[in-house]
């Protein structure tokens, strides 16, 4: 396959950055998108260029490190996958592919396609936990029976990989789906109920401080989420937040 790549190049956080056009040949449909970029980078380096920086690690869709806005969609045109699981067979010979970093004020670019998603960590610091110390003396795991349905729903919310596709794809750069996933996971479990009020208030306050936009319920995040985190979680967080506000 022969492709034209339009890639965002930016030397560092201070640099202004611009889209740059490249040509690449010899791409096989079996390659993953990131392997295509590997080949492209090797080619670029052999010509004396500086490789395109992009985040990636596990390359099996679970670590959440890879990002990329490909042809106008977070993680590209396929559904239910991260960029590392996107394969070149989704594209045709002669295609032009536009590759940009995840864009949000809260996700500043570090270099090229690499962005800083520490805002997500800081939201988790504000309340993404259950306050239980490690002791070896907590009650037996089976002492708290949990309805299978609740456990399954909590798992569905907990499946979030923190990649930031929801923010990147949201026209408002809202982080509601990400925050709602964690709030929901704990809200659904008896272990998490004790701190539910503080948790939702603190996490939302931190989310707002980080400069994410407001959710307008377009639903784009749910569609682009590689783990299919449901919008129901956002509704649940809204409920949690309202009842917490009334209590607090």
């Amino acid at each position, binding site marked *: 396959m022969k492709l034209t790549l339009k890639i965002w190049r930016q030397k*560092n956080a201070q640099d202004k950055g611009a889209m740059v056009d490249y040509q690449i040949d010899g791409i096989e449909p079996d390659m993953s998108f990131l392997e295509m970029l590997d080949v492209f980078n090797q080619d670029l380096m052999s010509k004396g260029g500086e490789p395109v920086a992009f985040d*990636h690690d596990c390359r*099996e869709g679970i670590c959440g*490190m890879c990002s990329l806005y490909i042809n106008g969609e977070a993680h590209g045109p396929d559904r239910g996958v991260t960029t590392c699981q996107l394969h070149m067979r989704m594209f045709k010979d002669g295609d032009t592919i536009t590759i940009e970093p995840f864009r949000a004020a809260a996700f500043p670019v570090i270099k090229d396609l690499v962005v800083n998603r520490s805002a997500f960590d800081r939201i988790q610091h504000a309340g993404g936990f*259950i306050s239980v110390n490690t002791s070896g003396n907590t009650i037996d795991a089976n002492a708290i029976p949990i309805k299978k349905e609740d*456990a399954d729903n909590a*798992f569905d919310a907990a499946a979030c990989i923190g990649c930031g596709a929801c923010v990147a794809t949201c026209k408002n750069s809202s982080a509601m789906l990400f925050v709602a996933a964690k709030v929901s996971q704990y809200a659904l479990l008896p272990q998490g109920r004790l701190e539910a009020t503080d948790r939702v208030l603190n996490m939302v306050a931190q989310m707002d401080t980080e400069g994410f936009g407001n959710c307008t319920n377009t639903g784009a995040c749910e569609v682009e989420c590689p783990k299919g985190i449901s919008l129901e979680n956002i509704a649940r967080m809204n409920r949690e937040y309202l009842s917490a506000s009334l209590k607090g």
Partner: protein
Amino acid sequence: MALDSKIPNGPIADKWTNYKDHINLVNPANKRNLDVIIVGTGLAGGSAAATLAELGYNVKAFCFQDSPRRAHSIAAQGGINAAKNYQGDGDSTFRLFYDTVKGGDYRAREANVHRLAEVSTNIIDQCVAQGVPLAREYGGLLDNRSFGGALVSRTFYARGQTGQQLLLGAYSAMNRQIGRGKIKMYNRHEMLDLVIVNGKARGIIARNLITGEIERHSAHAVVIASGGYGNVFFLSTNAMGSNATAAWKIHKKGAFFANPCYTQIHPTCIPVSGDHQSKLTLMSESLRNDGRIWVPAKLEDAQAIREGKKKPTDLTEAERDYYLERRYPAFGNLVPRDVASRAAKERCDAGYGVNKTGEAVYLDFAAAIQRYGKEQVLIHHLDANDKELIIKLGTEVVSNKYGNLFQMYYKIVDEDPYKTPMMIYPAVHYTMGGTWVDYNLQTTIPGCFSIGESNFSDHGANRLGASALMQGLADGYFVLPYTIGDYLSPDIKMGPISTDTPEFAAAEKNVKDQIERFMNTNGTHSVDYFHRKLGKIMWDKVGMARNEKGLNEAIAEIAALREEFYKDVKIPGVANGFNQELEKATRVADFLELGELFAKDALHRNESCGGHFREEYQTPEGEAQRDDENFAYVAAWEYTGKPSDAVLHKEPLVFDNVKLVQRNYK
């Protein structure tokens, strides 16, 4: 220097309790005067960081990823073992201990493994208290599944994402402490050297991967939790960034490296599709419960399939060789990982491989679909002669069990595994070897600890499924917090450690010199070029089956490649900024040394055991031949300037509680 494993006296079941009763403790007011550095934030590092911070220590945690949540523990699929005996099927601490020692082919340290089995139950309690959504039954209680190498159901799981959920649990515990200021988190930082002051580990030199700045960090103790070294093979199921640098740097500063040749090759991975391949994807071991593994019986059929002239479904039963069922009638497709992997390699080496690279075998679900389909037809009183209906119903059953894996396979290979057999091939998955540690998880450098996959201690020569998560969390939550306190108790009045000392300056200079050298080499090849070459040497000569000749060649080739690397590597960009090529170079430089020691260790171990198979040492039937008389020891290597000059130290393994027998799966 004689190795002292510091195993407490007394009966094995009492050792850990007695140990805890008699160690020195640090009082809570003094803990806040003590700093601990933890490198790596996976299950072991993350759980240790959170627990030490809860206890009151000042923790500085480092990870090269952009968040602790991305550590590669997250990719573990299957589950975590614990001797809870919730199923009432006869499990116990002793059984878990016994299975783990046996599964490790009798090359693990008994006392450590028993302690692991003892704390396993606490891990499940702790994780549930943290809100980890482990799988449950309709009655609301926790569900279990069974895994290879065990006769009981003791594996807890969270769908196919157990590692993810456990890691996010540890991450949440860390977040609580980061929020309280008890953990200072250094994301996108890579440890590049250890600083030793007066014989004790007192700090590290780290590179800020965003700014390129070389930083000095001091602490009263340093904990390495940086995972395994599987990426020495270039292609593995490890993450792209997984590396051995932290472990190797402490090795070069005096920590012995134990059993590097013990590597687990997982039999069910998606095969390499071409030269562009960057990593391999694991398909859960659970697939072997229903899939039948085969290759064509005739060479010409294999060739026709490779050339695309025939399809696997064209071959009749008689034209297929179900080689595991043929060779191991008793265990069949469910032989342990090491046995299954070697058998696949044997067939492919003989020319029976089925993909275009010739390195793949089939994992076929057609029989399972038929079997389940017929069962469903009977259960629902439907037409037993309707072949299409049987396939439809059977497919549904298989889909319910393995749907997500089949989907993953489809996305990667673009073939429907419900209709045509999957192709699989073994891939490097886990490293049992690692830094040598004593019972306290302390390396041979005082004050430098090693936990999780980065140490060698619990899995012997082969790790059982669902034991890696158990070990990581056991070390971090329940072992290290005790043992490190014992070590730190004399240091309570020491006060903060200055980084403005000649030792820090020397270590920093060392790091800066290496980086400068890379930046100035200006050669012709990228880092990946060398890494791929190293991987090929390792895979061909130090892979699933090894022999003396190949290992000697590998040692020479790796040494030569290392020399070429330093002369001819090309690093574009700048050192004082974000530079992924430079990051790779520092990691590959260490793999190029580790790989040589790996081969040297494999060469010296004149036996076959677990993940280490020497072609010279096999039974007439081609099975691994252990030599307990001469090799029942831990090989701990001391660095003396080059990998080839490493000095061997032996820690004899004493088995008082299990009887050594030859594993037999026929």
